């Protein structure tokens, strides 16, 4: 893509970022806010990860050795809430903040002050959520799905949890609005929608999903709040309410939510695979349409999370068949990525390694997803470790690996320094091997009959639980390497990165036209795209 990039050569120092703490507290620069989001997400990954370590420690062998069953339930609940709302979602918003203005040739996000606000809500929301550990009754322990009536048995943490979820929701909605407005209004002249890099496309669709579903979650948890404190009976059968209605509302949010977590990953992978195959993405438009189709389908499949609640046959059939349909656009994506590599010139730098691991392991998660869609078989899988294996395959080697791929892809652009490629390759192999040792045996456990969310189990499940725990500890430890590699690059270690960073002439993103590190202000004059 040809372009005119004038301002980088005008001899003017663009790194006049404000100094001191004010730079971060009052940040309106998309790069600073993106950095804060990413740092926040990393911290949350480690907090949520520590909780996963507690879970795997307790499940290392049969019998209760370390924690009370109630605390165990808090661990599973908080692990999910923190990883989803504190880890993956802010990481995507961070990447969006950094990269979307750079990719569409905009000087910043469209609504910079709201951007500041949407970030700074998060530390408060999660501080509140984490403070619930110190309240009478402990942290929420009814599962991240918050099903009533169980969730209404929570102690003093209940109101705090609901409030924290509201804050996260507001933050997400504002972040999403910012993405939509930026993409719709601030593209450089000539940057047609169908010329945008796929990361912008998938994020645009994600943003619409967020705007559509976060208010639904807010409504659901508000009804829980009034049921708990103000004597309403939305979900209380004794008062004429309906506990199953909550599940319908929750999953109407919850299913699009899982695509909120994975669509930006599709975007990142769709950029990394072409770069390191030195070939344009195969079937760009079909990728966009496939993403749109997945987003549409995500709104009409929610009750496949609830096959066991006793829906009418027609309802079960509808949700089974519509769910199976998702395999079609998802398949199109996988085939397009594969064809992109076909007759390419492939090299294996860390971003590509993570993207390829994503390709294989997300596909495995897709296969187990198809199996789960088959309702008569789902009655066997439902709420077992098979489900745990499925969603961890799509979320960890799926979403999280794509985040890491994205960070390794753009880190030199952010810091101006190439990170330690050898160490990052080690990080990749350790992560990929251990993540499979961690999650693959969970398929076996579920099929053999181990329910999820239990702190102790029959001895027949002992072997694979021990294997999974060992994989878990290895995976957790491997992530310390990630912090080390990133910190080294941030602190100026490693060789200087060029503007294009990767030796490839095909990647079209405008981010490769600005110097590395990207100056504090970019595209003050819009680039012209032919």
């Amino acid at each position, binding site marked *: 893509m040809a372009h005119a990039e004038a301002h980088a050569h005008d001899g003017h120092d663009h790194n006049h970022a404000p100094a001191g703490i004010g730079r971060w507290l009052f940040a309106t620069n998309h790069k600073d806010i993106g950095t804060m989001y990413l740092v926040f997400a990393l911290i949350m990954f480690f907090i949520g990860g520590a909780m996963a370590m507690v879970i795997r420690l307790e499940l290392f062998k049969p019998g*209760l050795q370390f*924690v009370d*069953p109630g605390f165990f*339930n808090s661990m599973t609940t908080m692990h999910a809430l923190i990883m989803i709302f504190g880890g993956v979602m802010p990481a995507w918003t961070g990447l969006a903040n950094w990269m979307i203005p750079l990719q569409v040739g905009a000087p910043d996000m469209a609504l910079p002050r709201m951007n500041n606000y949407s970030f700074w809500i998060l530390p408060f929301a999660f501080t509140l959520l984490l403070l619930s550990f110190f309240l009478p009754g402990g942290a929420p*322990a*009814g599962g991240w799905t918050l099903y009533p*009536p169980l969730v209404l048995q929570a102690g003093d943490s209940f109101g705090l949890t609901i409030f924290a979820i509201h804050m996260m929701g507001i933050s997400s909605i504002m972040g999403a609005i910012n993405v939509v407005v930026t993409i719709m209004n601030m593209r450089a002249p000539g940057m047609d929608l169908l010329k945008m890099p796929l990361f912008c496309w998938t994020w645009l669709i994600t943003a619409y999903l967020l705007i559509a579903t976060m208010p639904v979650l807010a409504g659901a948890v508000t009804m829980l709040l009034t049921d708990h404190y103000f004597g309403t009976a939305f979900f209380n*059968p*004794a008062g004429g309410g309906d506990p199953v209605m909550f599940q319908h509302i929750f999953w109407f949010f919850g299913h699009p939510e899982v695509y909120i977590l994975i669509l930006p990953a599709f975007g990142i992978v769709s950029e990394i695979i072409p770069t390191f*195959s*030195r070939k344009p993405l*195969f*079937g760009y438009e*079909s990728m966009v349409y496939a993403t749109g189709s997945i987003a549409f389908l995500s709104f009409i499949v929610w009750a496949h999370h609830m096959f*066991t*609640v*006793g829906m009418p*046959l027609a309802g*079960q*059939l509808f949700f*089974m*068949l519509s769910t*199976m349909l998702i*395999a*079609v656009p998802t398949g*199109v994506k996988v*085939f397009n990525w*594969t064809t992109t*590599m*076909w*007759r*390419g*010139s*492939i090299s*294996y730098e860390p971003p590509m390694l993570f993207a*390829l691991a994503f390709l294989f392991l997300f596909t495995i998660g897709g*296969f187990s997803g*198809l*199996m789960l869609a*088959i*309702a*008569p078989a789902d*009655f*066997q899988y*439902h*709420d*077992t470790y098979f489900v745990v294996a499925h969603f961890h395959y799509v979320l960890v080697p799926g979403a999280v690996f794509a985040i890491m791929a994205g960070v390794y892809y753009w880190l030199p652009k952010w810091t101006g320094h190439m990170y330690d490629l050898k160490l990052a390759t080690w990080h990749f*192999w350790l992560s990929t091997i251990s993540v499979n040792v961690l999650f693959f045996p969970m398929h*076996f456990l579920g*099929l*053999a*009959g181990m*329910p999820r*969310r*239990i702190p102790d*189990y*029959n*001895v*027949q499940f002992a072997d694979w639980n021990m294997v999974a725990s060992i994989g878990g500890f290895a995976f957790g430890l491997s992530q310390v390497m990630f912090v080390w590699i990133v910190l080294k690059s941030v602190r100026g270690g490693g060789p200087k990165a060029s503007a294009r960073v990767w030796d490839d002439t*095909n990647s079209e993103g405008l981010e490769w036209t600005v110097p590395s590190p990207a100056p504090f202000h970019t595209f003050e004059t819009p680039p012209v795209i032919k």
Partner: protein
Amino acid sequence: MSIQKKLAAAAGLAGLAISAAAFGHPESSLNLPVGVTPISQQAHYLHMLTLWVCVAIAVVVFGAMIYSMVKFRKSQGAVADTSIVHSTKAEIIWTIIPVLILIGLAVPATKGLIIIEDTRNSGLTVKATGYQWKWQYEYISQNDGKTESPISGVSFYSALEEKSNFTRQLGSGLDPNQVENYLLNVDHPLIIPSGVKVRLLLTGNDVIHAWWVPEFGMKRDAIPGFVNEMWIQVDEGKEGTYRGQCVELCGRDHGFMPIVVVVKTKQDFAAWLAAQQQASAPAATATAATTASL
């Protein structure tokens, strides 16, 4: 680098072969049990069918990926053919083929679902109520094909058996390996006959629970304010003890409310039921007498 990749590919293939060999082995704990009811056998069939379809797709797709990854390496001098950017034909082919495969799966799945949801013509109706953290079973009625006759006075609670309960306490110092059927044993199991369609009514008393015995192939939620139903028909000749657990998070002791079902022959079941009714009858009379004398 290339050696690493080859090793990884080899390890991946070996892993696939090992797991494929282990699937379907009768004593293996790696796979879904075939079970003892028509529903469980059907679930197992659909599970294996979908699994093999997925394995076949994986072999083709992963094969193409691995081939590309090995064949088109830059380090081996591969030059990119940048003209391959789009093919409507290819997109149509790989949209239609998956649709056909899905239809192939949807047909048996739909048939299976229709059978599962057909709870008519049951011979015995039992109600299971979930409590934090035990089950209650009430025998409601019997049907000999002509008339529905109520069963009265047969009802009991079914909770985790003592030995497991002592052992599972935090820091008990007891070894779970020494406890027979650790966490999967109860004081009073549910008793049902083989060869009879048993209709199970499910509800919850406090929070949502879910009733599941893997060998029976069906699980359903027990929800306060709702009565759900499911059916079990254990094949004749498959009498024995079957174990499962609550599978919907129901609070602190969710992991400690197992389900045990003892399947007896029709004759043995009839004898057991008669004994239960007799045992409860004098008690009921006595209670009535006590109430009257007050």
